[in-house]
């Protein structure tokens, strides 16, 4: 049964509207995301994929068009804490321990102490950092910090997860491992994920759908369904079908670039 979680209609975003330096970042974006889908946004630099993600998260507002999240405005969804966000930089607060960092949203949402601690423990176990609860961020590697950020984003069990190139700063092996972890978490928590990435491999590996965007002004060039079997694992990347889908995405990207020209 169709269960649209995010509905975007003819969305436009212009930075510095009316001034000489106006930048048309997003043009006529229409996108529907169903419940429990895993959507990747991929495109050349400056195509507006991060901007689109931030509009969904109500961290910035569209200039025209509308967007509905969970049948509400994006603004209301944010106030209702419907989503968790993971940025490219882990953005952990360096005066808090790992556990306290995970608890940050829970504190703000006024969860009672016992429940905060229980959820934190569960989340840290989920990302396999249970032993590091009392450590400080600067004692952890980049990959570990990012896992803490994921634990933090999930601690209040949002129905939507927004991730903005969370593994961009990490090495390939760590990245592949974390991809597996994200998939396992997605499978367990049944969240809806919108994932921004530069990497074609990552997009194909993780998603149920890959949305290819064109260069500025960003538009949706193609929407490719990824019908690889679930649950995916390390072997999935070596399947022929995987390679075919990667090629499809790559060609869509190339086409979107040449169309601009």
């Amino acid at each position, binding site marked *: 049964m169709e269960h649209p979680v995010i509905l975007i209609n003819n969305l436009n975003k212009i930075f510095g509207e009316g001034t000489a330096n106006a930048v048309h970042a997003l043009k006529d974006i229409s996108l529907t995301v169903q419940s429990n889908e895993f959507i990747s946004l991929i495109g050349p630099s400056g195509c507006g994929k991060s901007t689109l993600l931030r509009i969904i998260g109500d961290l910035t507002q569209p200039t025209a068009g509308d967007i509905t999240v969970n049948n509400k405005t994006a603004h209301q969804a944010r106030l209702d804490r419907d*989503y968790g966000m993971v940025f490219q930089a882990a*953005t952990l607060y360096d*005066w808090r321990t790992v556990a306290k960092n995970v608890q940050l*949203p829970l504190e*703000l949402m006024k969860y009672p102490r016992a429940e905060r601690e229980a959820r934190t423990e569960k989340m840290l176990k989920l990302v396999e950092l249970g032993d590091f609860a009392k450590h400080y961020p600067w*004692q952890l590697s980049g990959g570990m910090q990012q896992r803490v950020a994921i634990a933090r984003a999930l601690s209040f069990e949002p129905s939507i997860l927004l991730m903005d190139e969370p593994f961009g700063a990490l090495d390939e092996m760590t990245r592949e491992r974390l991809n597996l972890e994200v998939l396992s978490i997605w499978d367990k928590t049944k969240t809806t994920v919108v994932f921004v990435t530069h990497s074609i491999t990552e997009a194909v590996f993780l998603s149920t759908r890959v949305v290819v965007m064109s260069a500025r002004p960003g538009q949706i060039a193609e929407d490719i369904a990824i019908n690889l079997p679930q649950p995916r694992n390390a072997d999935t990347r070596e399947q022929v079908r995987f390679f075919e889908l990667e090629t499809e995405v790559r060609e869509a990207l190339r086409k979107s670039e040449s169309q601009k020209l």
Partner: protein
Amino acid sequence: MAKPTGFLSGFKPALYFLVIALLLVFAWEGYKLLGAPGGKYLRGTAPVKVGDERVPGPLCDSLGWCEVELPIRTDDRAMPPIKDIVLTIFEPPRRGSNDMLLTILFKASLFTLQEALAGFVIGGLLGFALGVIFAHSNLLERGLLPYVVASQTVPLLAIAPMVVIWLGGNWFSVAVIAAYLTFFPVTINTLRGLRSPEPTAVELMNSYAASTWEVLWKLRVPAALPFIFVALKVSATASVVGAIIGELPSGIADGLGRVILNFNQYYATGPEKLWASILFASLTGMAFFLIIAVLEKLLVRRQPVDLV
């Protein structure tokens, strides 16, 4: 992965400090040795009394260095021997008094320290409040910050006579001076610290729909703590200086200011006492500073960053 610095490494600076202090003691006594008897001239260049005659000194004959005047006299009046300065602390300052100078100095420093502390707390709270206000109101910041800055260039200690007389010449007026000296650095650094978090850290808070109050207490204030402590360390020193100077024109008898003035007046009869009291005043300033530094180590637990 970085390891937290060990416990013993905290002692290294103290060790270096002692080494240099000892070097200074040697330099002091060494310089004194350079002086001819009488203290005015370099040893060997002053005329020497042989029998009833005054003969030019040996260096005068051989090198032509005659009557070379030293920049600072080396007699015991101008430069009391270190031994005397230390010993005088354990004796009563004058006949008829039973207390050691140490006791008197100790009581006086406690008194002054209390004044400084009172002012420090008031000034610190005021500075913090101003910092928070300025961080949240551009209008107030633009209007008032220039004056906060200008207030720093007022030779405040010059106002000390007036403030003290206005407010009655008691410990409170001295505390006000200490407060004045504290509030400026704390304001500036609080403002800097409150604004220091990266935009992504603030966005994280926004994504949690955190209120301004929550952002303040959960993000900005903790981020500001290292900056605030830098200011507090400066202010600790400034409060003690302010307290001592503030006491000078007032009638306050119990503080270090009066003690220093007294021994200054009676310099001729016991220069070591003036030195001892000034060194004690210095120790008081340092002690306050160290207390704040220790507090900082306890409260600000994170990767050590050196902030200017």
